[in-house]
């Protein structure tokens, strides 16, 4: 297998490319956000990588894998300079911002258009390296650079430029998409690329050639297996037949992952096929503890002394590039392993689950370390007994029960038949919408973020917010309702005539002194718009208290 990247020669035709590096990138971003199909996105990226300057390519890889320069300018200053240039009052800027739902875009839309069409912008790497060089400079120098740059750019260029400064570049491209595009461009396998662009490297000091051939000697040791995914059970569990043919485990609420140890190196993959080795230093020790040539399937979850914590604890760590000591202490991570896919470099996927499980226990049980533990089997003699145990799911911080056929092999992708999720039903409550706020991004200028209340005597008490669960069409109808039935306006929030009733589903409830109602819900979402109910029919504060007593911890 040829592991040297095939770096495409910059074609002669690039002489005819008149667009600047920034413009090429701005066009790429427009294309990416307009396309809804992954293959089209990959093609756009492939086309971009074929013509963009090498230094820009390196930066694009850096940015989409979470390596952006530190923020050179804070957004308050950017707002100030913009309102000054456009000469509008601050409240009007804010009004625009609430409508657009994105600061970079608001700035890009408000700033005056380029006067001289022939004025060319610089390359992407020029601006990004400039951000680094002005980071410590004083405000006037920063202002001059930003304002001058704005004046040379068109709307799309300004948008991406602002995005680089403000940080949040979400345009529907995962690291995996970038990896697949690069793999096509340089003709290497995606897992090799993913490995090469992970880890520590500096976009300023690394060339495209170096980046992709850095570990050329390493063959595809990091490659994970495709995950086997379960369907939710749709009928009765009894229909699955004899319970003795099934292995039951808790369904953990974390990030599905594979831990791979090959060639004395450790790799951690998420289900999104993102290489996350660096994000979980807790696992580093497994390189010494696991035998070589092993692939484990399990759940990345926060846990303390072998007891899982809530998923929200993990959320404080995901997405951060550098994990602080404090986070390591407050959100310790463990791997709850439940399957063995490779042993001694041999593919075990076709062996029956019981055999894989037996070997897995042999490997893991002797390792006494908080970084890893076996996901326990739940023993029961009948479906009824198991159903009773399932009721404890919430106490276990689990989402329900997984059922796996004992003699099944490890399949690829989401398949029916051998693995089932038997999740607990969410808790629900009927309540009325009282506040609405405009959403952002895809939902900008639409009232999609709501606050809900239950009754307390003849008063209404707010107790949760929810943003999801409805169709676009329903959001459109509610948006219309909000616009016509708002009572008062506080900034971007409107108080709304309490009329629309929703059923809110949630996964858990806990006491909280941060909320007026005294409760905090876990994963609240709108499960149904109860058009059949009026505000008279909603649940009460007493009902919430009752739920807290039953399910709260």
């Amino acid at each position: 297998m040829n592991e040297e990247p095939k770096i495409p020669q910059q074609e002669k035709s690039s002489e005819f490319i008149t667009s600047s590096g920034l413009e090429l990138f701005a066009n790429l971003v427009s294309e990416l956000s307009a396309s809804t199909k992954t293959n089209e996105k990959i093609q756009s990226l492939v086309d971009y990588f074929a013509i963009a300057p090498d230094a820009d390519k390196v930066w694009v890889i850096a940015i989409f894998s979470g390596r952006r320069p530190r923020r050179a300018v804070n957004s308050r200053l950017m707002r100030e300079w913009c309102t000054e240039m456009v000469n509008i009052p601050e409240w009007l800027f804010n009004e625009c911002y609430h409508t657009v739902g994105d600061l970079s875009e608001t700035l890009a839309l408000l700033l005056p258009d380029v006067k001289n069409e022939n004025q060319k912008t610089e390359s992407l790497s020029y601006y990004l390296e400039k951000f680094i060089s002005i980071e410590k400079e004083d405000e006037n120098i920063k202002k001059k650079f930003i304002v001058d740059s704005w004046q040379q750019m068109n709307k799309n260029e300004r948008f991406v430029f602002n995005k680089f400064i403000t940080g949040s570049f979400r345009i529907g491209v995962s690291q995996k998409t970038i990896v697949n595009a690069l793999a096509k461009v340089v003709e290497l396998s995606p897992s090799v690329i993913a490995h090469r662009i992970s880890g520590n490297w500096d976009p300023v000091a690394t060339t495209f050639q170096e980046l992709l051939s850095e570990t050329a000697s390493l063959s595809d040791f990091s490659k994970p297996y495709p995950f086997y995914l379960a369907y939710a059970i749709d009928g009765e569990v009894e229909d699955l037949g004899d319970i003795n043919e099934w292995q039951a485990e808790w369904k953990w609420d974390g990030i599905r992952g594979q831990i791979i140890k090959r060639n004395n190196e450790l790799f951690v993959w998420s289900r999104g096929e993102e290489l996350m080795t660096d994000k979980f230093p807790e696992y580093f020790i497994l390189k010494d503890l696991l035998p070589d040539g092993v692939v484990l399937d399990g759940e990345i979850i926060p846990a303390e002394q072998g007891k899982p914590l809530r998923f929200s604890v993990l959320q404080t760590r995901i997405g951060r590039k550098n994990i602080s000591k404090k986070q390591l202490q407050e959100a310790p991570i463990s791997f709850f392993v439940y399957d063995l896919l490779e042993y001694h470099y041999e593919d075990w996927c076709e062996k029956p689950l019981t055999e894989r499980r037996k070997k897995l226990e042999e490997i893991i049980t002797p390792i006494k370390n908080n970084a890893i533990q076996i996901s326990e089997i739940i023993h029961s003699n009948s479906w009824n007994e198991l159903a009773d145990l399932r009721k404890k799911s919430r106490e276990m911080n689990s989402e329900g029960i997984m059922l796996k056929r004992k003699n099944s092999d490890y399949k690829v992708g989401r398949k029916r038949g051998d693995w089932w999720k038997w999740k607990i039903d969410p808790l629900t409550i009927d309540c009325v919408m009282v506040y609405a706020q405009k959403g952002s991004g895809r939902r900008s200028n639409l009232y999609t973020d709501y606050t809900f209340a239950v009754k307390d005597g003849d008063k209404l008490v707010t107790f949760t917010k929810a943003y999801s669960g409805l169709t676009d069409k329903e959001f459109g109808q509610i948006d219309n309702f909000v616009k016509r039935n708002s009572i008062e306006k506080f900034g971007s929030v409107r108080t709304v005539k309490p009329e629309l009733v929703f059923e809110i589903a949630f996964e858990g409830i806990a006491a909280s002194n941060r909320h007026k109602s005294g409760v905090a819900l876990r994963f609240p979402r709108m499960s149904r718009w109860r058009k059949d109910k009026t505000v008279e029919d909603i649940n009460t504060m007493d009902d919430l208290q009752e739920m807290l007593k039953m399910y709260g911890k």
Partner: protein
Amino acid sequence: MPQLISFTDKGLYCESGKFYIDPWKPVESAVITHGHSDHARFGNKYYLCHRFTKPILQLRLGDNNYQTTEWNETINMNGVKVSFHPAGHIIGSSQIRLEYKNEVWVVSGDYKTEDDGISGKFEPIKCNVFITESTFGLPIYKWKPQQEIYNNIINWISKNKENGKASILVTYSLGKAQRVLQAIKETTQTIFAHGAIYNMQQTLIDAGFDLKPVVRITPETPKELLKETVVVAPPGAEGTSWMKKFHPYSIGVCSGWMQVRGNARRRNVDAGFALSDHVDWNSLLQTVKATGAEKVFVTHGFQAAFSRYLNEKNIAEAAEVKTQFGDEDEEINSPLEIKPEEKESE
């Protein structure tokens, strides 16, 4: 003395003239600015509109007691002098000028200042009081010159053709569709259309407008004929099985709302063209200044922001007015909303 126009629960009412302008509840006498359904509604005993608006009302509201007028013609209604002036929004769209006892009020209806060649050329009218829309009354709304947008649409169509795709242009059937069809008629031989677009286009052609005829798509239209063609469809057809016939295709939406990326992304469209039939921020300001009005009432859109700005900058004494315009307007609608009348299947 009451003001010349008062804001009632039925609509804008001129007591001295005993008529309403674009009422939203049935009244005896209605003066209609233009044919969009939030401005021209069912149930009035008498309608006064521009000559070009009549065929539109006939199509949408059926036979009624319509009286028509020309632009700049003065009609005396119980002592109030009423005249219509081009608003440039859609075919027939008019501003209504009212003069009574030396006071002049102008109701803009919906308007745009750029001349699209078919909707009449907008002229600001000197007045004491101006009632203006504010659909796009925020400074983020700055339209590009229409020719630039038309070129983008034409380029998009040829790119789709190269890629073997049909181009589905989503436009509202009244106004935007005529404008876009005029823009692409030179570059596209046969243009196919959804029934709702076809009906409106044909009605206007029958009424004598020199517009591009379109071919109506019916269940019998052979699929092969539609390959790589241009299809004009109303928003209601977006995402329905009606679209399947054109596969593979690319969807482009023509609407001022496409100025903001989120709107285009939310609708999952392949291309968004920020082409609007309403004034943008700068033209709103210029128009208000050009009318010389000392008092401005701001209706549907960003009325709070726009009136506050006018007050703060001392451009005019401004107040916002609640109306029911915009609820079913072609553009003020939440971009997600589907107009029932556009749902018509074939």
